[in-house]
């Protein structure tokens, strides 16, 4: 603990430097609000410290980078706030950024210390940012004269801000170690507002895997010999918080075919009674109809499952057969001697408070009739208990039928929405993968480079071949330093809110010079992205530590790429990533006019590349979720416009429309 504290204070010192250098970025007016919202500084320190102990060194490094980034952001914030105190801007009231309530810090101890230091040194740069946050047009120095009138309001604002910070401070974050397929691991910081989809997207960026829909985050419980895949819409922090301190549970990043199998082969679930041969030959059109019928109507239809399963009786060792039936409202069984009619069914359980898990090796552990077992339990239960329901099926197919059926009953339409999102992500990815494939070397590299699919360009961008593989993050850069050096051109004064500054800091680490910066300058992230959940950008944080490696290093994981290449469906425009598109376009469209980003952008665009996922993250990371994508997109707009096919044009148009609103 103390060490860490010491480190932090060091960091704080350095931050001052950073902040000074950072202060300026050109940012378009738009996306401001969202960015402001996310204040990262409150970190669950207790959790953090605990988890820190378990980390390996390199993890620690990465984490530190993360934290630094965090602190930077905080710092900026604070500076901005302080500035805000001095110069009250009307807008501030709505936005969180303004003054920081001195009295109210308790919850977030760290920020406090930081604030003083930063405030003094950074004040200069910050002003702009504060103003910017709320208003686009704000010249750095606004209303100085009005001070008196405003004083009262300032005070109110201060209080308000403090309160908001308090709220933010409550945001819980966990440091999560995710095990990869190859046995390595990655460490992420996950914010309580992040859902699994966002975390997966992060991991995609870090691992260069093909982003196919099967990639999942799984939770294992070795003590109970259970595992399950998290659903993409779930928040990750909540289930992890249920783990015990000494838990051996793990989070895995794996491909799990069964996750979305029901959407790939709905006939196996909805027509499971038919003979298998007939199911194999089913036409795509019929599959579509099945999905339509069961997932797109007014009501979600649960597969009609009924069959004998073995049930381990509460607290006993024996397994007993029962005739079970799955219904939308729960699992039921037929009591002995009764008919199967609905009215005689007895409720076995309902799904509100339980999750479904796969059981591993229950034959040995519990003397189950087979190893095809699944379990239903409250997520908080971590040890053996009579409240855990153990069920055993005759074969794997039956088990998957039941587990999937239960998930459909429990999650309903969310499941289908998750799938559609995942599919989009995968499609986009495969597109650009294919494009970039020509040169095997570049894929890994920051393909970001230029739209051009040409590898060379990419390389050019990331000239610094970094040896480090993604997994091993030696981020030499400690917190402050990198940013400072790299700090791009501060000049673009358009003051910007807090977030941006952080970006630069992060980016700094990147050697890549101009191009990366460019992205940063780009407008702020439009909120439009539906896909992305909350604006608060936990993701950025995570990226920051690890992100760097991705860019720099050559693509170590060749394997992943190979797979990608093989991927079939290459949509025409790689550039249009599902999620990103909105922003990009948006930015592209909207940004140009208003903002000042004069010099750098144009060239950048040309040079810039499509590689949305990787690149952006690297350059922008600190920024809220939006940033990464947006960079790319914007570029695309510029470059891709020419080649734009119908779809892309459509997308652009839609974005514009959205933007207008």
């Amino acid at each position, binding site marked *: 603990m103390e060490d860490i504290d010491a480190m932090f204070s060091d960091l704080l010192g350095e931050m001052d430097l950073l902040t000074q250098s950072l202060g300026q970025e050109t940012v378009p007016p738009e996306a401001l609000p969202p960015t402001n919202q996310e204040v990262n500084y409150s970190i669950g320190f207790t959790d953090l410290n605990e988890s820190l102990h378990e980390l390996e060194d390199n993890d620690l490094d990465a984490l530190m980078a993360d934290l630094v980034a965090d602190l930077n952001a905080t710092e900026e914030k604070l500076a901005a706030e302080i500035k805000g105190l001095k110069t009250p801007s009307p807008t501030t*009231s*709505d936005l969180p950024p303004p003054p920081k309530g001195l009295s109210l810090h308790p919850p977030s101890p760290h920020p406090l210390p930081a604030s003083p230091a930063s405030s003094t040194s950074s004040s200069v740069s910050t002003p702009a940012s504060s103003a910017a946050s709320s208003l686009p047009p704000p010249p750095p120095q606004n209303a100085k004269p009005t001070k008196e009138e405003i004083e009262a309001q300032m005070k*109110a*604002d201060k*209080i*308000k801000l403090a*309160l*908001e910070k*308090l*709220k933010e401070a409550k945001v819980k974050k966990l440091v999560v170690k995710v095990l990869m397929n190859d046995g390595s691991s990655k460490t992420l910081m996950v914010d309580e507002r992040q859902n699994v989809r966002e975390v997966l997207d992060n991991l995609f960026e870090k691992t260069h895997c093909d982003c196919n829909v099967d990639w999942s985050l799984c939770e294992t419980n070795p003590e109970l010999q259970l595992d399950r895949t998290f659903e993409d819409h779930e928040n990750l922090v909540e289930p992890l918080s*249920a783990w*015990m301190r000494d838990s051996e549970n793990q989070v895995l990043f794996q491909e799990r075919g069964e996750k979305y199998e029901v959407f790939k082969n709905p006939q196996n679930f909805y*027509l499971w*009674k*038919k003979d298998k041969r*007939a199911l194999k030959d089913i036409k795509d*059109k*019929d599959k579509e*109809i099945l999905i339509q*019928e069961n997932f797109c*109507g*007014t*009501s*979600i*239809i*649960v597969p*009609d499952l009924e069959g004998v399963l073995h049930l381990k009786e509460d607290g006993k060792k024996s397994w007993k057969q029962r005739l079970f039936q799955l*219904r*939308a*409202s*729960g699992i*039921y069984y037929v009591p002995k001697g009764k*008919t*199967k*009619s*609905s*009215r005689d*069914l007895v*409720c076995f359980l*309902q799904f*509100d*408070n339980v999750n479904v898990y796969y059981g591993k090796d229950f034959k040995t552990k519990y003397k189950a009739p087979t190893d095809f077992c699944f379990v239903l339990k*409250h*997520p*908080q*239960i*971590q*040890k053996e*208990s*009579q*409240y*855990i329901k153990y069920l055993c099926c005759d074969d794997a197919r039956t088990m998957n039928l039941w587990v999937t059926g239960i998930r459909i009953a429990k999650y309903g339409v969310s499941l289908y929405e998750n799938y559609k999102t995942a599919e989009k992500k995968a499609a986009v990815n495969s597109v650009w993968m294919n494009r970039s494939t020509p040169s095997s070397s570049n894929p890994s590299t920051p393909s970001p480079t230029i739209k051009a699919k040409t590898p060379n360009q990419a390389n050019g961008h990331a000239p610094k071949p970094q040896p480090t593989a993604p997994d091993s993050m030696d981020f030499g850069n400690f917190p402050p330093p990198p940013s400072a050096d790299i700090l791009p051109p501060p000049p673009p004064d358009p003051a910007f809110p807090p977030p941006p500054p952080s970006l630069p800091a992060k980016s700094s680490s990147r050697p890549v010079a101009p191009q990366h910066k460019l992205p940063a300058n780009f407008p702020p992230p439009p909120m439009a992205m539906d896909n992305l959940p909350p604006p608060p950008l936990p993701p950025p944080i995570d990226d920051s530590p690890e992100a760097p490696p991705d860019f720099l290093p050559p693509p170590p994981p060749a394997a992943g790429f190979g797979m990608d290449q093989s991927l079939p469906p290459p949509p025409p425009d790689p550039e249009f990533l599902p999620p990103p598109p909105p922003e990009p376009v948006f930015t592209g469209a909207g940004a140009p006019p208003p903002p000042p980003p004069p010099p750098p952008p144009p060239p950048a665009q040309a040079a810039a590349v499509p590689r949305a996922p990787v690149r952006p993250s690297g350059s922008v990371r600190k920024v809220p979720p939006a940033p990464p994508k947006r960079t790319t997109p914007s570029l695309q707009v510029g470059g891709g416009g020419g080649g734009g096919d119908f779809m892309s044009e459509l997308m652009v148009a839609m974005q514009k429309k959205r933007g207008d609103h």
Partner: protein
Amino acid sequence: MAAWDLSVTVEDLGPDTPPVSLSVTSDLHVGGVILKLVEKTQIKRDWSDHALWWEQKQCWLLRTAWSLEKYGIHADARLHFMPQHKPLKLGLPNGITLRLHACYSSPVFQTVMHICRMLNIRHPEELSLLRPIEEKKKKKDKDSTEEIYDLTEVPLSSASRPCLYNGMPAHFADSPQMEAVYKMLSVTQPPPAPEVIAKQYRPASVVDKAHINGRWLDSSRCLMQQGIQENDRLWLRFKYFTFYDIEPKYDVVRLTQLYEQARWAILLEDIDCTEEEMMLFGALQYHISKVSQSEPQMLSSSAAMDDLESALQSLEVKMEGESSSASEMLENMTAPELNDYLKIFRPKRLTLKGYKQYWFKFQDTSISYFKSKEESIGEPIQQINLKGCEVAPDVNMAAQKFLIRLLIPAPEGMNEVYLRCENEQQYAQWMAGCRLASKGKSLADNSYQSEIQSIHSFLAMQKTNSSSHGNAPANDESINTHSLVSPRYHKKYKAKQLTPRILDAYQNVAQLSLTDAVMRFIQVWQALPDFGLSYIVVRFKGSRKDEVLGIAPNRLIRIDLGVGDVVKTWRYNNMKQWNVNWDIRQMAIEFEGNVNIAFSCVTADCKIVHEFIGGYIFMSTRSREKSDVLNEELFHKLTGGHEAL
């Protein structure tokens, strides 16, 4: 050409008047006959709706240019001259009877379209007319007091789309009476008294249900042809269970009637459900009836009003956002708490100790307790986080027992804890807190007050139930829970036993708006395994016993009558063609993969089965063409058979 005498009964002259005799020739066209007839009666009135009905042939002579010869009419023909639109008593899904003018001369499909237009129900193709069950008629004699809403004054508008006034068709805005009719159509009915439910006919088996489906009218023939006389009674029901494009904004009446039909299907066990599902249906009914009383107009405002309203609303939100001053925020931030002496009991621990009293504090989503109020500043004896826990009530008003049973998850399993409250007020507050906390909401949540209220009103229900025996009128605070469930549960549970179970289910729906609750009810209904099945008893070719054919929106199923099991399923999208052999009344269907089935129908005419299948196929074509125009021709093509127009 030789003239001969044609006798025509003119209905308007009264039943006892002898037929009017006209001297005609065979080449006289029908229009000419009518002209002569009118002249002869010497009555001046609007005859434009009148037409000739040929009794023996059971057909209308609607083609006025056709000659008598072309129609094949000779001197022995008995013709009736009467209006094509006549009053019809129409039983609605909500159990109320309307009297309105319906067209007796056009195919039932069109007649239903007209009725639906008058009632403002979109997608009339999903509904049809059904002959009522006779048994009901006997009982009907008793309650002859039954109220009939009269709509016969409504002009027969041929307008394609009624213009809306105040959100309802203009003809409903004419008078208070008409507005009352519209209210009846668009607002859900209060829960029926338990005796009413018990009195209604309930199908006891699949075969009973199959018999009901033999009563559908033929969509391609007119009412007169099917023996429906003036003032006869028919039921209007949703027949095809694929409800296309439900839009609460425009479908007030449709949604309400759909809900009513679903509700009665549940109450009369027309569709089976489990006990847990029944409790949820009960809770939703309770909620719907409660909410519809407090906000009676589901959506009666016009589109313009809607816009205005939403604009106002968003304005309000904005103002709120801007005006949330620091002090307000501070208020929001200081979380409300509950503090009180309660008694706690942990049944799990093997102790004989009973309830022990402590000072309890409810904050955020946790309960902490202390030895006494004085010690509440220090460390609590225990703090329990209720997030994710299960909360069950255990209340007995008579015994003044107010118990909250908590099942609290922990890594080792679930811990049982009982909290005992002293009185109703205390119980309602703490119970509401526990409920919210279990869903991860704090006392600051804005649903807290309404949660307290709903607990109070349920307690009140229990009170009245224990005093009067359920005969209390179903007004707001005292709904008899027996009104919410099927008669099976009247026998199984006393009303006050049902109350906590329904309350339990109610927790999850209490925050729904009226429209959402109605939609939820319909969704849960649709999610039942047997939803959408219409049964017909059939005899498969080559089989010696009767079996049941279930017709669903997407498939046919074959059910073994003895066991009740589904033997086989065929989906429409694998269907290649189907034919009816009208001579032997047999249906033959061919599916992909050389699957052929053939059956004759036992409990219904094969035209009904044919129409069901063709109808569902028609329904499935709707999604593709988005146009609002109903493709009537296609419907008849798919459902009409060789009798098609």
